[in-house]
């Protein structure tokens, strides 16, 4: 099947099998390998991408379902030169070790803070509890997301 969707501000046309997951479509058809597959049944959150502003599991969504939609991956949240404020907060707080779960953490946190730039620690923990990290013990990730709130508050105020 042929589908059209917006991926990280670019519109693409892709030929996909109906059974192809969005994650495999991003990774194999579009070479966007920042989206990682950790469990392929929606539990670990490593493959989280943003579809029409909402964080979704790319392993549980079929590629055909995003026809006409807007999809943002970790690559779309990254600039060529400097780290984004959220990414910089991750680095400052040592919120990543092996880095495999990190893109899913970044997309999940971005979706949260875009909607709730004033999320408190409990709320951040609650939302991040949908993503598994085996390396960090989570505390630096929570700290990084809390620290990044300021940048999103500014954005929300000016938008």
């Amino acid at each position, binding site marked *: 099947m042929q589908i059209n969707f917006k991926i990280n501000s670019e519109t693409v046309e892709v030929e996909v099998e109906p*059974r192809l997951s969005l994650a495999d479509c991003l*990774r194999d058809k579009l070479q*966007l*390998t*920042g*989206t*990682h*597959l*950790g*469990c*392929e*049944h929606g*539990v*670990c959150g*490593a493959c989280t991408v943003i579809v029409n502003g909402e964080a979704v599991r790319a392993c549980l969504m079929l590629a055909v379902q995003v026809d006409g939609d807007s999809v943002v*991956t*970790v*690559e779309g949240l*990254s600039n060529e030169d400097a*780290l984004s404020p959220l*990414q910089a907060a*991750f*680095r*400052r707080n*040592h919120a*990543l*070790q*092996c*880095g*495999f*779960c*990190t*893109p899913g953490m*970044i997309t999940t946190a971005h979706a949260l803070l875009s909607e709730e730039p004033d999320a408190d620690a409990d709320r951040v*923990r*609650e939302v*991040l*509890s*949908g*993503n*598994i*990290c*085996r*390396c*960090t*013990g*989570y*505390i*630096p*990730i*929570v700290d990084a997301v809390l620290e990044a709130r300021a940048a999103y508050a500014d954005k929300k105020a000016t938008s």
Partner: protein
Amino acid sequence: MGEFGIGQSVRRTEDDRLLKGEGRYQDDINIDGQAHASFVRSPHAHAKIISIDTEAAAAMPGVIRIATSADVIAAGFGPLPCIIDHMLELKRQGDLPRVLPVRPILATDRVRHGGEPVAMVIAETFQQARDAAEAVHVEYEVLPSTTDTAASAKPDATQIYDDAPGNVCFDWEMGDAEKTKAALTDAAHVTTVDLINNRVICASMEPRGALGQYDKDSDRYTLHVGTQGVFSLRDLLAGAIMHIDPSRLQVISPDVGGAFGMKGFVYAEQPMVLWAAKELGRAVKWMSDRTEAFVTDTQGRDHVTSAKLALDKDGKILGVQVSTIANLGAYASQFGPGVPSLLYSRMIPGLYTTPAFHVAVSGVFTNTVPVDAYRGAGRPEAAYVIERLVDKAAREMEIAPDELRRRNYIQPSAMPYTTPSGLEYDSGDFAGNLNDALKRADRDGIESRKAKSKAAGRYRGLGIATYIEATGADPKETAKVEFEDDGTVALTIGTLAGGQGHLTTFAQILHDRLGVPFDKTHVHQGDSDALPQGGGTAGSRSLVIGGGAVQATADKIKDKATKIAAHMMEAAEADIEFSEGTFTIAGTDRTMNIMEIAAAAKDASNLPDGMEPGLDHTDEFMYLAPTFPNGAHICEVEIDPDTGTIDMQRYTVVDDFGKVINPLLVYGQVHGGIAQGVGQVITENCVYDPESGQLLTGSFMDYGMPRADDFPSFNVSTNEILCQTNAMGAKGAGEAGTLGALPAVINALVDALAPLGVTHIDMPATPESVWRAISAAKAA
């Protein structure tokens, strides 16, 4: 050394790429023209293979080749090795040799655990390979299975191997049985604990994979595989399995998405993709999914232990006796039998003066996935036993748990101290760690906090654990420093990180030692062709041994650079002073820095007669002794008796890692270790169905991985007592978090529920088991 020196929390050079989604992990590596592999795996825990019918599968779309054990035999490949004989001489009771069964790469006539590979299907696409793998028809005769650790050691248990009666792989003893027995007889008090160290799944977030290539012209293989050490994997694959010269195999590791011991081993899929690459003349890729990871990745822990502690009337330890059954799984894995024998038993005396000790361990086979090293490998198991004993003894003798520990600690003045298990501790202030931790945890305020909880209908407890461990594994490491034409420095190291931050730490050490600019240094790892030899990540060894190699290499470069500086500035070598990368003629303002010398050294005309041009150098380091990181963990919990849920309120750690190179990264290691330890205590448990032998916790839906809302903040600090056996003064930090966490959390739970009469809770202390413990205590 400014902001990039030793002791600075330098932010990682790794992060930029990984945060932008530019990491290159196993599944991101693809080779033009590659085919895809999928494995047919045993659905049974124990069965005879009657027949394998590949005809229907072979006719399916895209299928290129199907391999079974006949192909492996035709290739002349050896079985998956257990290299324990290189480490220890294991025996069974009655002076019989240990049993190391043949572990075929693909099963021949029998399968002994669910998930064991039986056939390999190679197709044009991954989906086609998977579809066809499902169409391979294997006829099995299902046999009775045994999975439970203690039950498998009983005389009436199902026998897995004809030549391993009682399912025994080995019986191991350490210490003095008679002396320990006498200590127990003479003791004023004997404390007994029976405990289970539950089996856990390593669960790196990135599953395993393997991508094999073969080049006909050079007759060389290349394996792309996320691993913990490319050199040892190369040598084992080439030497033990493929019977080729190691120079004919290059192992390259991409970014590694977590390993924790589990990725340190050779696995069946690795030789198979190499075999297939040669057979087909094209690259062959295999990528595990999560379900496969659960049934093929080595698993961890799994001990059943009965232990006794003998004390005099003042709470002084007289002896400790430990009897353990260790579940090895269906086969002896690469290091599997070494973990519950040597690595475990030699740490049983812990931080205490222990006049007599005896440890007896039986390693038994079961129809489960093989067990091997998991973060800590034997030391967390030992720390759990001794710290439960000491804590329980204190409670029984009505001595404060910290005080009983203090009465028994090996004193700093006694260092170096040789333990009865033969380890020589070089340094440590165990009471100092504990005292600091108690203060940071506000132990003085615990009674009022307990009272507040009680008023709210909850039980609060504070648990103490102190630990010591021996780090090490492969004692040798290699480092190469090259000064590139573009003014950068390439540092190639033989060890390999999977998230620990080596690229940053080793650049810091080189910067400290040689003064090369931190931001011009690029650290390389994970290519077996890049160095003559190397080690890898295991046993918290990389910083001390790899760092030693960086220092040794830097020192040789400094010596040569001094000669060049003297020659170029026309001074005597003895007059050249070195500091922070600058070579100065003493008493003058005439200087050259290391980068200027490196550039000049490329031109022979700048050098003394006969000197080889260039400053590049490769060197090795061999460590003299293990390091002994130690510390104190204090955990405070609140329990809701109605639901059995545990609310972790505080977690405090004081560690002695000797000289800390990068505090940020060390705290990261401690946090991660605590999380894995706490996970094992409160949520994680690997469960096999006792009837069918099926893994019941075979997905993240069923296996309780700890999550972000399970943890409070951790209060982590260090007490730097320099290690006396290496130049940096550093002690390994990678695994320590798991050592303290198991006993600290259980001791906290027992402290909370002691008023009800609870004396022990086994791991995992899930809400259900805590609730049951409360109910049973109330009913008693």
